[in-house]
Structure formats: C-alpha cells, structure tokens
C-alpha cells in the first residue's frame, strides 16, 4: 500500500495538490464502520455494579461494619492481583475496564459477611490469578473467576466459609462499630453464640442427615427465618434476594443481559423442586425456598450471565441455564454441600465450548448444517 499522500499523488494530472493543510486530516486508512453505538466494556461493568449496589448496601446495613471491611478487602485484593499480574506479564493495565472490581464484588457477595479478612484477600487473589489471568486475562477464562475462588475457599476452609450470623443492623444495640468491626474482620475472634447461626439450606441439610422430617423442621422455632424480606442469616448477596431481583431485571431492561439465561436458571431449579416437594415433602424443600435461598437470584442474574463464561447463542444459553438450575437442585438435594450454585456454574462453564460448537445460529441462505439451501426448482 502506498503512503497516503505519496507515490500515487506524484502522477496526478497537473499535480492535483495533495489535500494536506488546514481542514483536511492526513489520510490514515481506517476500517469501516465510521460510527459506533456507544457500548463499552467499562459502561457494561458499571451498569452491573449499579444493579448490585442496592442489595449490597442493604447487606452492609444488615450485617454492619465487618461486612463492609470484608467487602473492601476483597475488592482491594482483586485490584492488586490484577495490577500485579499485568505488571509481571508486561501488559498494559486494564484496571479501567472495571472487570477486576466486579469479580471482587461478586466474590464478596458470596462470602459469609463476618468471615475473616484473609478469606476475602485469598479469595480475591485466587479469583484473579488462578481464575482469570493465567488464562490470558479478560475474555480468555473458561470458568467464572468469582466462583472458582468461592469453591476453592469452600473446599479448603469449610468452617470459615459456613459461619453465618444473624443480622445485627447498623445502629441497633450490639452492632459492632467501625473499629470493632475491623477487629472482627482482621483478628477473626470466635463468634458469640448469640449471633452465630446456620443458613436455611445448611440447617435443612443438617436436620435431614439426622433423619428429621423437613415439613416439621421448617415449622420449628429453631429454624432460621426464611422469607423474601431478607432479614435472615446468609451471605451479603443471598439475603437481599428481592433487591438483587430488581437489579437483575434492571440489567435485562437496560439490555446488558438477555432474559433467557436467568429464566432458564430459575426454571431449571424451580421445576424439579416443585416436582420433588410435591412427591416427597418430607425429603425435599419447597420451590419458593429454593428460589429465595442461597445464591439463586445472584447466580441466575449476575453469575451465570457472565459474558465470558456463558454460551453466546440464545439456544445455548437456554441449555446452559437449565443445566445450572437442575444441577443446583441436585447438589442441594443429594450432595454433601448445602448450596450448589457455585459448583453448578463451574460444571456448566466446562460445557460452554461444546455448547457453542453444537448450537450455532443458522446462516442466512444455508440450512442448520451449513449447506446452501436448495433452490425451489430442485
């Protein structure tokens, strides 16, 4: 290719003057299109964070300063890990896109709110280094980084990861102040019995393993509260299920995520739960408790919908979402762990390349197998 105002111009009749100078830019060969819809990675990430904010603030209010400190430390760990990795690899920093902050945010929402700070820091580092950067950074990781970190933590530190507390809203008597909250997060003293609690799913699993009848367990006074208001033990992102649902619907209407994938996850979980509970109420939790408990809403709208680790066609997203829902129900109902969303997401993540290979859109003028359409006369 000749230089823009070079060789070709020399042969111009009467040297039609190259249009350099005021008013005309030096010609650079730029690809079409010369317009853009305005979408950007950082805008997308920002919208997701905005959708998470109400539920997060609700969680801060409910679980107090320890939760705030844990959240901040987890985010800081993610940002530092991202910066460090890119520094070591000699790559340009991409902190501006907001993806590391979002990973930390999602991880923090899945932790017990009074978990020790090192859990958040270690989790953040695992999410970014093992979950994302070793694969080449943003867009290259096959597994959801936040869920990779959560599963590593859950398997490695089962006690710290299942220590739930009853809500002690900020400002209520007995709520830790800023400094006391910092002590709880940094020094991790044993939780006083008064506020230690089990989550509903954990409680149900324990009782089931003792041979109890679930129908009676759910009615008993010792059972943790379970309703949609969110005033109950659980992770930051579990209790504010209604606010998360609102945030998720906001993302759907803002066009950031499609409705297919969350709907598929919720259906995949609710349908077997309905059937199971109808057949054996003593053995299986009702569907509404499945939907309100654990990471169901967070998972359906914010985790499963991660662009990088989900299939890219609508049909693929239906398959993927249903798979996550069904697997979550199976793990919750039959597995050793009370909650199964993280495992279900990772298992289905592993299938994404295969799903993307099988379920491709039909090309215009070709059939599903990619052969040209037959002519009407043939």
């Amino acid at each position, binding site marked *: 290719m000749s230089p823009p105002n070079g060789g070709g111009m020399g042969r111009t009749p009467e040297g039609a003057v190259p249009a350099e100078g005021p008013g005309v830019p030096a*010609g650079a060969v*730029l*690809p*079409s299109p*010369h317009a853009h*819809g305005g979408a950007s990675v950082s805008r997308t990430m920002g919208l997701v964070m905005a959708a998470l904010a109400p539920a997060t603030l609700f969680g801060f209010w409910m679980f107090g300063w320890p939760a705030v400190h844990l959240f901040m430390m987890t985010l800081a760990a993610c940002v530092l890990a991202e910066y460090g990795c890119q520094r070591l690899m000699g790559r340009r920093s991409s902190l501006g896109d907001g993806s590391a902050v979002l990973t930390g945010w999602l991880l923090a929402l899945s932790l017990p709110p009074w978990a020790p700070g090192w859990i958040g820091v270690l989790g953040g580092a695992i999410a970014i280094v093992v979950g994302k950067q070793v694969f080449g950074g943003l867009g290259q990781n096959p597994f959801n980084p936040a869920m990779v970190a959560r599963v590593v933590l859950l398997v490695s530190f089962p006690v710290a990861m299942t220590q739930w507390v009853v809500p002690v809203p900020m400002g209520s008597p007995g709520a830790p102040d800023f400094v006391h909250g910092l002590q709880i997060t940094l020094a991790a003293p044993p939780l006083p019995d008064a506020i230690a609690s089990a989550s509903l799913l954990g409680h149900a699993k324990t009782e089931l393993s003792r041979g109890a009848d679930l129908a009676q367990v759910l009615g008993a006074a010792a059972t943790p509260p379970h309703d949609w208001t969110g005033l109950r033990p659980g992770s930051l992102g579990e209790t504010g299920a209604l606010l998360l649902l609102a945030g998720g619907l906001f993302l759907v209407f803002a066009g950031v995520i499609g409705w297919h994938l969350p709907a598929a996850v919720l259906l995949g979980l609710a349908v077997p739960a309905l059937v199971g509970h109808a057949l054996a109420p003593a053995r299986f939790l009702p569907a509404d408790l499945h939907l309100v408990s654990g990471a169901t809403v967070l998972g359906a709208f914010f985790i499963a919908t991660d662009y990088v680790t989900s299939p890219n066609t609508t049909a693929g997203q239906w398959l993927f979402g249903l798979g996550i829902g069904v697997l979550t129900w199976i793990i919750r109902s039959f597995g050793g762990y009370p909650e199964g969303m993280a495992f279900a997401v990772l298992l289905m993540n592993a299938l994404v390349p295969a799903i993307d290979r099988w379920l491709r859109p039909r*090309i215009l003028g070709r059939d599903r197998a990619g052969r040209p359409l037959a002519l009407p006369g043939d």
Partner: protein
Amino acid sequence: MGFLERVFARPWGVHPEDRKRPAADVPAVPVAVPEKVYIPLAQHVGAPARPVVLVGQKVLKGQCLAEAAGNISAPVHASTSGVVAAIGEIPAPHPSGLPVQAVTIAADGEDRWCEGEVPADPFALAPQEAARRVAAAGVVGMGGATFPSAVKLALGLRAKIDTLIVNGSECEPYLSCDDRLMRDRAAEIVSGIRLILHATGAREARVGIEDNKPEAIAAMGEAAARHGEIRVLPVPARYPMGSDRQLIVELTGREVPSDARAADVGVLVHNVGTAFAVHEALRLGRPLVERLVTLNGGAAARPGNYRVPVGMLAADLFAAAGGFAGTPARLVMGGPMMGTVLPHLQVPVVKGTSGFLALTAAEAAAREPAPCIRCGSCIRACPMGLLPLEMSARIRAEDLSGADGLGLRDCIACGCCAYVCPSRSPLVQYFHYAKGEMSARQRSTLRQESTRKLAAARVERVEREAREKAEAAARRKAERDAAKARAAAATAGEAA
C-alpha cells in the same frame, strides 16, 4: 415464512442514529461544472472501459469516451463538453489512493449535449434491444455495487424472474441521495421501473422504502398509483435493510441460497437511482453522466444533496458547497457503516458515489480496541447469522480455514458487529483481511498447481523427445543395416 418463524425471527441488524436530516430536507442543488473533470475508466465491477477518444479531441456532453471491454464492463461518457486534456493516471477514489486510468476533460463551459438517439416508444423495443441501450448508456448499479445494469437485465430475462425489487431503503445513516431522488423525481423512477419490468419480463415490482422516509413513500406511492404492477412497500428502518438478501426476505419471504443469485429465486434487485438512470437512457437518450451526491457530516458546512457531474473532484465539490465547518477528523466516501476512508479529496465522483462525509472526531468515534469479552452483541446484530467473535478469534490466530468453516464467505461486511462491539474490535477489518488473504492463498495454490503441471508436462515432453530420437536413430540404423545386408547379398549374388 411461517408464523412461528416470524415470531421467533432473529432481530438482526442495528439501529444507528440516521442523521439524514436536515440534509435530506434541503432540495437538491445543481453544481456548476468545474474547470476539469476526471473520468475514471473503471467505475464499475468488471473490466475497465477502453478509451475511444484522443488527447486534444473535442467532446460533447454525453459522448462516449471509452467503450465496454468484455462481457462484464460498461462504457463511460463525457460529463460535460470540452477538450480531452489527458488520458492517464489519477488517484483512485479508494483508501489506498493508488492510481487509476482516467480521461481528463478541460470543460469549455458550454456544457453542450451531444445528440442522443431516442426511441419513439421504448416499450416497442425488444427486451434485448432495451438492455443493449441501457448498456450503451453506461448504466451501473447506483446503490454502490456498480454492477453493469444491462448484464443484470439480461440475466433477469434469461432466468425468467417474476418480481423486480426496487431498493429505495437507503439504510446507511447520513445518506439521503435516494430519498431526495424519490421525493423529487418519483415519476421518472416509476417510468424507469416500468422499463426494467419490460426489459426483464418480470410481472410485478415491489419498491422497498424504509419507514423513516415518509415523504419518499408518499411521493412514490402517488407516482405508482396508476400502475397496478408496482407496489410501494414501507419496510422497517433497520440497518442493513438495503442489503440484497435481507430486502428480498423482507419483501418476498424468499431466501436466496448462499451459493445462488437472486435471479435463481425469481427476483432481481435494482436501486431507485438505477431505475432513474434507465429512464434517462431510454426516454431521453442520455447516458449516465451525473448523479445526486450527499454531502453530510458534522464538519460539512452546507449538508445537502448536490447534482454533480461524474468526474468532479471531491475537493471541488466541497469547495462549491461551502467547504468545511471546523476540522473534519475523517473523510468518508459512502455511508458511515460501509463507506471507505479517503486519504484526501483529490478523487473524482464516480457513478457509484452516493456521498461524501466530513465527520468530526465525536462522530467518527474512534477508540483503542480492548479484548473481546464474548458478550455476544455481534452475534445478535449479524444480519447473516454468523459468529463474528468466533471468526475474529480464529483470524487473530491465523486459523483462516477455521474462520472459513464458520461462514466467513457469507459475511457481507455490513459493519453491524463492529458498530455494537463494546470492545471496539475492528471486526470488519479482520474479515476483509481474511477474505483477501484467502483469495491470495487460493491464487498462489492455483499458480503452484499450474507450475507443477507445466513442469510435469516438460519432463514428459523431454522424455518423449528422447524416446522419439532414440527410436528414430534405431530405425535409421535398422534401415542402414538392411541396406547393407541387401548390398552384401547383391554382391554375393554377382559373385555367384
């Protein structure tokens, strides 16, 4: 298309801000003929035209300067009267700015038409004769594809098409030359459509116009009201509605197989500008020497549509239209979605030039690309049902056959994918690169193949020649021996 297919139809395409107004609402302005026009010999798909004038020769407006060379080619004509000043190279209207052959005419200012041959009743002409006259008038596809129109007319006649699709969708943002033409010259376009129907034997014509052009729809509807065979159909404003295959589906429900042409499903697509040019050629005997050109963009001083002689330099055109408002960050020929960047304005208007855009930095919206986050926006936007993100990932890894397997050849380079991409990945550039590289490789494979064949043939020939030489030598030796033996026998006989 069945009901279910309509309900679950993929919402392909994008909705860019159209930015057609106010330029579209200003009546078209005729531009004074400049001192010189530069008329390229290749303004169409196919072989460049062959010059038939000499330097120094006087020519009249509409006189043929170069005639078609080959089956797929088109002649070019003088767009004003004057003297042929040069036949040589000028920079091409192309991002490379590489030289192309052109005839330069120094205008005499009289702008005098040469006598055209006008048939009394063009409908009395045989379809083949009508197509021949369209060919002689140098009419090519005015939508930008610039395929010689007469070739398409003949193809339509041969393929016995039943429906003519007239493309007035003008889905590219900023451009409004077709809109303006339909508003101002609807009767002439309808006349052209009827002539094309005559030349192709099609029964009916459907004119597709995007619903963001209500004035054009009204004007065309009125002009076509007396002709039952022509229907004006508003189509949803959605880019790239003006692409052949998409418009055919929208207007007829027929899907053109990927390895076939529109004519194979009984359809032919012509642009409204082409219909107008056909009318001018058959009714007035005037070849295609001028066209409407949109000047637009935030940095254009007087956005609007201009009636421009073919061969006028973009620089002269902008100068005649008030120049620039501020500094253009990017100069584009065509629309913002598929147009090409011009390195400078010393390029002529050609038959396929729909417009020039002087875009500000904010409009051009250039930014550094970031990594793909697999959001899938490009897949939803692709009007062909391709997987742009998967194809680009393979092309980045130089896996061209992998990209080909995903349908790279079906890509129409409409730019929807890059338009919606949050990472600003230059997807169209990847696909252009890969297509070019693949055809280069194919050519080199063919070349190697023919070299190999030639080498094998040479080896075979050398062997054959050696063999024949040896055989000839053996034959001669045998003859000599036989002669000797005969001589010896004769001697022996004499002796006896």
